């Protein structure tokens, strides 16, 4: 089924107009959603031809020297490779878009087979300010934007962290002061949370806010890496009839997302962290929730839409914090 929203995301990803956050979301989708990947490839094909109109610029020779050095250990020795094209190597190969010979470049523009005057005029305007000459003024404009977007981002991050901190603080406080308020599964078992006496409980926590919009967290995921337990708190996501939410770990260390199990319909879900992921993997991973048929994805990788994504952050600074014990 054609998904307008998703196709626009793919188009803007290819065009390059997404923010860093949105690009991260698109890249996550790209890594495991074949329909999204197909949409991106199609947009690359639609828009990619625009590169033809970019002027070629000769890069410095050092670039090739560095690339060559990096691939040298990986290259197959020359003798083993059949010479497919039977042509001499690089030196003789002209750049595909190398500068045209002088006489050609001096042809009057009128000789151009212009497909559309308006577009051509626009492009001429664009190319009238190549980076070489436009850089200083553009750069100043860019700085202003960098600052503005940075300020916004910090503001947003501050709000986000504030929310996480508040929720976590409530959770920690409640679990230590009034455990009876928590659902049974989240109560400290036999006082275990207090009994270890090391104050390490909070340090080994990672928190991820899984969301679609920065302002509307859907799930709050907490990973207790020491006890290898994960908690999911439903914040704004509503249960969907005939569907289950499934939680995924996406890491560059694995070719495909790994399931962390289903998110229950209650406000809190607690379960052991499946698999044997080390702390660095858990810390560096992207977490996602997809909507699956009841009982979870039949294939072992997300089969339904990925609704929410988020990265884990350390819940608290790495210093013991245990007011209940002093």
């Amino acid at each position, binding site marked *: 089924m054609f998904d307008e929203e998703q196709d626009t995301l793919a188009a803007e990803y290819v065009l390059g107009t997404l923010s860093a956050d949105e690009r991260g979301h698109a890249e996550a989708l790209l890594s495991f959603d074949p329909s999204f990947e197909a949409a991106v490839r199609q947009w690359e094909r*639609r*828009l*990619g031809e625009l590169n033809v109109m970019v002027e*070629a610029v000769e890069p410095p020779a050092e*670039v090739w020297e560095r*690339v060559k050095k990096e691939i040298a250990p990986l290259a197959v020795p020359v003798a083993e490779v059949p010479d*497919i094209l039977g042509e001499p190597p690089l030196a003789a190969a002209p750049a595909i878009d190398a500068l045209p010979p002088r006489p050609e470049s001096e042809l009057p523009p009128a000789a151009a087979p212009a497909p559309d005057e308006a577009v051509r005029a626009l492009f001429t305007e*664009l190319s009238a300010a190549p980076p070489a000459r436009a850089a200083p003024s553009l750069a100043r404009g860019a700085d202003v934007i960098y600052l503005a*977007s940075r300020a916004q981002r910090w503001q947003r991050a501050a709000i986000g962290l504030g929310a996480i901190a508040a929720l976590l603080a409530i959770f920690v406080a409640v679990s230590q002061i009034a455990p009876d308020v928590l659902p049974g599964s989240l109560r400290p078992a036999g006082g275990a949370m207090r009994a270890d006496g090391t104050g390490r409980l909070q340090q080994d926590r990672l928190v991820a806010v899984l969301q679609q919009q920065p302002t509307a967290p859907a799930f709050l995921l907490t990973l207790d890496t020491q006890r290898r337990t994960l908690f999911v708190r439903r914040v704004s996501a509503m249960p969907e009839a005939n569907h289950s939410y499934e939680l995924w770990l996406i890491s560059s260390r694995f070719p495909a997302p790994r399931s962390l199990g289903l998110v229950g319909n209650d406000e809190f879900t607690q379960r052991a962290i499946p698999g044997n992921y080390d702390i660095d993997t858990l810390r560096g991973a992207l977490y996602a929730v997809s909507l699956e048929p009841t009982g979870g994805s039949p294939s072992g990788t997300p089969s339904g839409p990925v609704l929410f994504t988020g990265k884990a952050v350390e819940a608290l600074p790495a210093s013991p914090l245990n007011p209940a014990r002093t």
Partner: protein
Amino acid sequence: MLTQAELVGLLAAVAKGDAAAFERLYGATRAKLYGVLLRILGRPELADEVMQETYLKVWKMADKFNPAVASPITWMVAIARNRAIDIVRKKAEISIEDEPDAMGVAADTPPPLARREMTEELKRLLACLGKLDPEKQRIVLLAYYSGWSRDQLAKKLDIPVNTIKTWLRRSLIEIRECMGT
């Protein structure tokens, strides 16, 4: 000049670890990719870095290239642009020290290659772009060539970001419908 078929052949050889084919591929595509990167990144030292990353990625991913889905040059340009835009977006978050030094690029950059290299696909795309209002053409092309985000487009063109968002969305839908595929 290498034909598209020759570039496809080179990529197939690169996928098998053929360094000589890789060198020829580099020679045939370097100036185009560098031009694209320089436009987006603005600074030669950044463009150099991304060139290096891009070609390493091409070397490693050549076996993933599918000639039925993309032409070699658009595939490589997509890799380069993606990386460049990632960098520009991340810089916007973390860096304010970016007053670029004077650009070291030759001042006599060549004119656009439109005259010589107008492919059928490009003509079709331009015809569709030409149907958009001039302002919308402008934002689509500025976004593609300069790698600007919606926020940047809004700032630089002095248009509210929500308007940019709406225009982009409509323009992309129109392009999709006009191109048919």
